[in-house]
């Protein structure tokens, strides 16, 4: 009897131990864990692709898609857009310089999500060399280069938008990595961006052998271009011009000629020879712009002064001459629709349908390189050379001559003219506000008038005087830290303007 009991209990223990196997297993049934990933070159490649995917739309679904932030950050506070009838209250507050820390557009989460993907690749990809013999050093370099470039681009947006942000360079791969982080000074962030991009330039190939891929993935010249823009922001003009020359001398990019439709090449088709880096939306991944700009749900339209004061209208000739970047490219003049992202032809007659809303978001194109170089060498006291570059841009766009003519002998008037030319060239491409701030902050805010003039055009008349007062505080040029971040990260200190 006693023996039987022992046998039974032994059997039970055995059976129990065997059946325990399954529920002691800690791996999730519906996902991959890190220990199983980062084994093959395909997985590295998938992780890098994930970085780009994260820029097309919010991964968590809790925030907006990145291009929506890029547009609102780059345009809403400047003078080229006007609110439509379904504008959000948060957007109205941004226009009128009334941003509160609760404003949903002050949420940087989308950008840090992408940064985290970059950090993960940078940290974990090198180890794959030991796991997969077919994964070469070249492949690793390429993956690192892409991650570094995108991370730098994200920080470049953050530093221009918030001035000081936490500089997180390590991935958050487990709960143990969660910790509070203080803000880093903007110089430290900019230096990190420069270091990352310099490294990336060496890692990245000049081309992937396919024109469309070269526009959608970071190449060596993507890194050079972002670096040029960073140097320009840091007021390092010699370095900026040198970076621009790298891209110009590569011979891989050029302006779309006069004979072709700019709108068609750049925005309807995308991946043009002029483009350097863009977000490639397609039928499966739509951009957020249709509902933002379409007439029956319009949140944003083009400002009413653009045709008359920016592009110019020709009332003299029977067939009026026009700036090919204005009506039918940047906007549709008759109803002030922002045309670049929802137009379907350059005659201004056909719109994209909702399921065709996949115009690419262009971060940089060759025209940007030429105008950045013009701005840099003008600051290096070469206004004449700068004016030649501007002239190239103007001629290809058949720009109209009106208002103050370009004065290639004066540095200060060239500075103003280049800013105006950038306004015409990059309308609604999320650059205007940063252009204004960059020119305003030069020489200890000597150009504050650029910001004040812009405010006078765009801010509601009964709020203008307040806005002028606010703009004189340099901290007001940067967004507040989102309230949720302040509550969860106790080391963060709010921008003193938003006291």
């Amino acid at each position, binding site marked *: 009897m006693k023996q039987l009991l022992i046998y039974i209990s032994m059997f039970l223990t055995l059976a129990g131990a065997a059946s325990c196997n399954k529920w002691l297993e800690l791996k999730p049934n519906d996902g991959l864990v890190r220990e199983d990933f980062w084994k093959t070159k395909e997985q590295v490649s998938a992780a890098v692709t994930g970085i780009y995917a994260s820029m097309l739309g919010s991964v968590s679904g809790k925030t907006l898609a990145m291009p929506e932030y890029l547009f609102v950050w780059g345009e809403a506070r400047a003078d080229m857009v006007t609110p439509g009838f379904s504008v959000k209250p948060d957007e109205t507050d941004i226009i009128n310089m009334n941003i*509160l820390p609760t404003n949903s557009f002050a949420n940087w989460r989308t950008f840090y999500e992408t940064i985290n993907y970059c950090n993960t690749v940078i940290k974990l990809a090198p180890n794959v060399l030991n796991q997969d013999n077919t994964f070469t050093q070249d492949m690793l370099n390429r993956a690192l280069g892409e991650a570094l470039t995108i991370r730098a681009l994200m920080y470049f947006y953050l530093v221009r938008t918030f001035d000081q942000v936490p500089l997180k360079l390590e991935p958050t791969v487990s709960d143990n990595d969660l910790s509070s982080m203080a803000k880093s000074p903007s110089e430290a962030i900019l230096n990190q961006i420069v270091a990352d991009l310099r490294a990336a330039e060496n890692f990245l190939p000049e081309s992937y052998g396919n024109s469309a891929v070269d526009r959608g993935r970071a190449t060596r010249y993507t890194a050079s271009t972002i670096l040029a823009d960073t140097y320009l922001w840091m007021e390092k003009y010699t370095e900026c011009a040198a970076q621009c020359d790298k891209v110009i001398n590569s011979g891989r990019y050029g302006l779309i000629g006069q004979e072709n439709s700019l709108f068609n090449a750049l925005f309807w088709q995308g991946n043009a020879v002029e483009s350097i880096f863009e977000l490639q939306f397609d039928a499966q991944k739509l951009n957020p712009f249709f509902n933002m700009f379409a007439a*029956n749900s319009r949140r944003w339209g083009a400002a009413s002064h653009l045709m008359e004061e920016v592009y110019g209208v020709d009332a003299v000739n029977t067939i009026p001459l026009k700036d090919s970047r204005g009506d039918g490219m940047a906007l549709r003049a*008759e109803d002030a629709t922002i045309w670049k992202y929802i137009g379907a032809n350059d005659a201004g007659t056909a719109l994209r349908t909702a399921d065709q809303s996949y115009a690419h978001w262009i971060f940089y194109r060759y025209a940007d390189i030429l105008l950045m170089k013009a701005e840099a060498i003008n600051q290096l006291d070469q206004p004449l050379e700068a004016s030649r570059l501007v002239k190239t841009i103007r001629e290809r766009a058949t720009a109209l001559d009106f208002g103050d003519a370009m004065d290639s002998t004066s540095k200060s008037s060239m500075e103003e003219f280049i800013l105006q030319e950038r306004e015409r060239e990059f309308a609604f491409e999320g650059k205007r506000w940063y252009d204004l701030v960059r020119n305003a902050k030069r020489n200890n805010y000597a150009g504050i008038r650029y910001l004040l003039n812009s405010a006078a055009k765009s801010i509601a*008349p009964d709020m203008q005087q*307040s806005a002028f007062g606010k*703009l004189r505080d340099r901290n007001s040029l940067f967004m507040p830290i989102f309230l949720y971040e302040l509550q969860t990260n106790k080391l963060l200190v709010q921008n003193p303007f938003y006291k």
Partner: protein
Amino acid sequence: MTRKKLFYMMVLICGVLTACTKTTLKQSTTEDVNIVGYLRQHPDSFSLFEKVLVRAGYSDYLNAYGAYTCFVPTNSAVQLWLTKIKAGNVEAADINTLQDMVKFHLLNDTLTTASFKDGKLPVPTMYGQFLVTGVASGERGSSYLINRQGAVTRSNVKVGNGLIHVIDQVLEPAKQSIAEELAAKSDFSIFVEAMKATGYYDLLNRVDPDTAKRWMTVIAESNKTLADSGIFSFADLKARYSHTGNPAGANDSLHMYMAYHILGGIKFLGDIINSPSHQTLQPQEVISTQLINQEVVVNENVFNGVLEKGMTIDRVASDNAATNGVWHSIEGHYQVKYRKPTAVFWDVATFEEILKLPATYRKASKDFTRQSEADQPFKDITWGWGALAGTNVLTYYYAPTVSIGMYCNYQDAIKMPLGLPNRPTYLELRTPPIIKGKYKIWICYSARNQSTSSQQLCEVYVNGTLMPRTFNFVVKRPTGTAAELEAIGYKQYTENTASQMVGRLVGTYEFTTTDRQIIRINPINGTQNDNYLDMIHFIPVDDNQVFPRFKPDGTQIFQ
């Protein structure tokens, strides 16, 4: 047995003991403090203001449910203020003074800094006066300035019953009326003397207990402003305007001058620029206001193609709050202008939106589609949304070779579908400025039937008043001499004699203010797409109604 009993007893005691363990229930639904609670949490900064609240008897009231905005002065600010009112401490201060002080810092609404504009806050303080907001920028950055007194040092503190903004100075309400404030300024001596002579001083000195009547706005001319126009003393001013010799009389031009500088209601500059015109105390006279290059400009208008330069309000010297309103200082002298009613031959096909399209304007036709009812693509044109979405199209119609358009003024017109059940329910247009006076109103259209049975009978409203005669977009001009036609309310308004070109008199209307007016065309019978409206004529009743006629190139013919 006893052991068993003991055992049960112990079980019971154990049960009772465990049951007795008290669970603490949370009684409150939130741990947010209210306004007073917040002050008590931060005695270092706000103990004095909290004492003021207690002494004034408002602390319980502000610690209960509600939605308030409270501007809270810091301890140092309250201390300074106490010294200023010559009270050693809160207990020594007069209780009425304390109550007024609290009331002036309290609003019955929750206002974040996002609703701070250049001017008054949307709701008055509990004291009754409005607070003025602005932004001041100094070496330590920019901050909101309340009532030009206290700078906001911490904003938008959310508490259970509202919002707190911390300020570094106690706010003090205006103590004087508009009249007293102006009288205290030697720069305005001539203007004040004129106020007294015309009898407006008493009006501007009174604080009406009825808040609907209390508020007034004065646009004052300083001595320097008047001197720039060659007026160096009250005698000069009186000599220039007072033609009856009695400025107190309503018909005296000096009286009118003063009435024309007073607006009803409390209007800070932020309010003034939000409306294109403001009624003055001079009956039927408005001033027009607009923002030009960041300046508030009064009475800059185009009449008959002539630009009349306006006067600029001096921003720095304006927005002065008083017990019964606000006053501003203007840099230019202005007076009511007598204008003779002048005919306006309004080409409705020249509107702002088409002027921006030089490739189209007077060169090609163009459809303007409204995508939804909320979509308003035009500044001065709108229409009642047509049930059939596709009919909400206003066409700029240009046709130099088609008979519908070729005889029109400049060979263009606007084409608008109208009529129930499917098409837009009305068309509303804002005219160019028309000088006040009595006018005959002529609707000039190119008649067209969409199909033989189409009808489009319309009535016309001018500033909301129905005109006695209707017109019909499909009806051609009857035959007859010009005089015969005028007698039955028709005219040939074009050079071309085609009977489709119809000028139809819809009625006579007296415009009581010189302003931009509203015309509404209301279809009452029939519906069609092909309604071609070319012009609307406003001709003073005493003028020739038939001429000028218009050539296709826009020139006028006078006989």
